[in-house]
Structure formats: structure tokens, C-alpha cells
């Protein structure tokens, strides 16, 4: 009797702590469909991310251009972050794995976007620029992804060490700031791609900024879902994510296949 009361008390504490509306937004969807929906969205997102990563990895291994490395690694990290998002949903009843997977997902996502942004930063940075100011800026920009690894690890670890359980609401607040960081980083990438578009004066290059705009919209929708616990905002974020990644794959595929056709036509002539 006493043991069962203790167990009930533990369950009540666990339920109060595991507020389903705070961390993984998949719990906003009906529990009957959430696992299937998560499996479908995750499978599509991971496949698309890995396809993009493969395209850029081939380019990197062929050219050896260092600045390109951020793209395959970034998109691979992005794919991994979606896997951890689904894993945190699977272990949502586990008081340790649920927040742990959530934080690995947040970490990987911010790291991925920072790495992609670094590729654009190093491509756009003027090689002729020199001096202490430029070097300080380079160090700051390179250190930023490292900080994004450190913050999501240190804060929950500290919280776990100082309290017997995670302060979920507090950690969800931190995730909000990380999503703001993601939006700023995607904004920088968007600005860089628009600058390339203007330089090249080629409207066909509009697809890539559009893809990044959709990824920005995903983060924005997740912030909306964070504030009003709206399942619609979350579904919107998933749709924006898949549309953005699919657009990216479409561009990569179209560019490489079109070029192949052009080469074959040139050979035939």
C-alpha cells in the first residue's frame, strides 16, 4: 500500500514535470496519429536532408574547396536532428531520454544551420581583406557554432546536476532563444543567396532563397506553436520544412540533370 502510494506520487510528479506541451511539438497532435505522423515526417525530412548532403559532398570531394564542407555536414546534421526529434517523441514517457533527445535535436539543428551559414560566410568573405578587425570577426564567426554546441549541453547538464529532475519550462524557454538564433542564421543565409542572385542577375537562382525562406518559416511556426500550443502551427512548420527541403532537392537534381543533357547534346554536335 505504502509502496503503491509512493509509486503514484512519483507518477504524479513525473506527469507534472513532463508537461507534454513544452518540449516536443509532436505531442500537440492527437496521440492516436502522432507516432505515425512523426514517422512519415521524419522519414521524408531525413531522406531529403541526406540527398542534399550527398549532392554537396560529391561537390566537396571533387573540388576540395574547404568552404563547401559546411554544406554536406550541415545537411547531414539537420537530418540527424530530425531523427532525434522522432526519438524524443518515442521516449516521451521517459523522464531522462525525452529531454536528452530533445536537446540533442536542438543542438544538431542549430549546429547544422550555423555550419551551412559558415559556408556562405567563407565564400563571401573577401580574401583581400586583412587586419586585426577581419581576423577578430573570423574568430567570432567560427566560434559561434562551437557555442551552439556548448550552450544546449551545458545548461541542461547544469540543470540536471542542480535539481533532481529537469526544469522543463525553463529549458523550453531556452529552446525559444535557440529558435531565434536559428532564424537569424537562416536570415543571414537568405541574404547571402539573394546577393548572389542579384550579382548573377539570374531569376532561376530564386529557388534557393525560397527554400531557405521556407526553413525560416518552419522556425517561425515552431515559435508560434511554442506560444499558443497550436497543432496547426506545428503542422504548418512541418509542411514548410518538407517543402523547403524538397525544393532544395529539386534544384540540385534539375541542375545536375540539365547539365548532363547539355553535355550530351554538345558531344552529339
Amino acid at each position, binding site marked *: 500500500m505504502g509502496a503503491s502510494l509512493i509509486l503514484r506520487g512519483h507518477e504524479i510528479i513525473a506527469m507534472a514535470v513532463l508537461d507534454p506541451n513544452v518540449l516536443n511539438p509532436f505531442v500537440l497532435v492527437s496521440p492516436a496519429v502522432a507516432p505515425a505522423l512523426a514517422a512519415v515526417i521524419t522519414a521524408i525530412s531525413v531522406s531529403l536532408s541526406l540527398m542534399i548532403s550527398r*549532392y*554537396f559532398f560529391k*561537390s566537396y570531394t*571533387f*573540388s576540395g574547396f574547404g*568552404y*563547401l564542407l559546411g*554544406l554536406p555536414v550541415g545537411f547531414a546534421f539537420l537530418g540527424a536532428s530530425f531523427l532525434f526529434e522522432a526519438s524524443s517523441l518515442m521516449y516521451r514517457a521517459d523522464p531522462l531520454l525525452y529531454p536528452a533527445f530533445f536537446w540533442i535535436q536542438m543542438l544538431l539543428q542549430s549546429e547544422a544551420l550555423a555550419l551551412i551559414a559558415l*559556408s*556562405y560566410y567563407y*565564400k563571401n568573405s573577401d580574401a583581400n581583406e586583412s587586419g586585426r578587425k577581419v581576423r577578430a570577426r573570423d574568430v567570432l564567426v567560427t566560434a559561434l557554432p562551437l557555442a551552439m554546441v556548448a550552450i544546449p549541453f551545458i545548461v541542461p547538464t547544469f540543470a540536471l546536476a542542480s535539481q533532481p529532475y529537469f526544469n522543463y519550462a525553463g529549458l523550453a524557454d531556452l529552446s525559444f532563444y535557440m529558435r531565434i538564433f536559428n532564424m537569424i542564421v537562416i536570415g543571414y543565409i537568405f541574404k*547571402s*543567396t*539573394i*546577393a*548572389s*542572385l542579384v550579382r*548573377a542577375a539570374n531569376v*532561376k*537562382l530564386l*529557388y*534557393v*532563397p525560397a527554400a531557405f525562406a521556407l526553413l525560416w518559416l518552419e522556425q517561425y511556426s515552431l515559435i508560434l506553436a511554442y506560444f499558443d500550443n497550436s497543432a496547426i502551427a506545428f503542422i504548418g512548420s512541418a509542411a514548410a520544412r518538407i517543402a523547403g527541403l524538397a525544393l532544395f532537392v529539386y*534544384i*540540385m537534381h534539375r*541542375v*545536375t540533370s*540539365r*547539365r*548532363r543533357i*547539355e*553535355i550530351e547534346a554538345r558531344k552529339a554536335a
Partner: protein
Amino acid sequence: MRQEKRHKLQLFYEILCAIEEDAAHNEVAKPTHVQHFTRLSYDKMMNHFDELEEKGMIHRVSGLVAITAKGKMFIEQYDQLTSLIESAGL
């Protein structure tokens, strides 16, 4: 006019394209024609020829030069790379 510094990959690409273009009519290309297309000094071009031959992208026959299947593959891959980078806004 000062010419923009070219990356080694770009130089290889331009040399191989010039060879392919010139060899389209005679199977082999004349180094002087390749030099004209690529705007390189003769010495530098010969150094690049040595490197390309080492990599199996060209072969030389009695002072003339021809592109190999590997060289043609390099042109294709470089074309795809530049399109991909350009399309990504990089």
C-alpha cells in the same frame, strides 16, 4: 587589363576544354592553339600538361595533345560542380 587569378581546377578545366575543342576536328590538339585559348604562358601550360598527363587526363603524341576519357569525365564533373555551386547561391 589585369586578369583575375584562376583556381587550379578552373585552369585544368579551361585547358581540357581547349584541347577537346581543338581536337574535335583532328583528334589531337596543337599546344599553341591551347595556349591561345587559355591565355597561359607556354612554360606554365607545359607544366600543367605534365600534371594532367600524370593524372591520366591527357596523353601526348609527338608534340600534339589529346584528351582521355578521364579528362572528358573531369569536364563533365566540373560543369556539374559549377552549376551546383551557382544554383546554391555560393
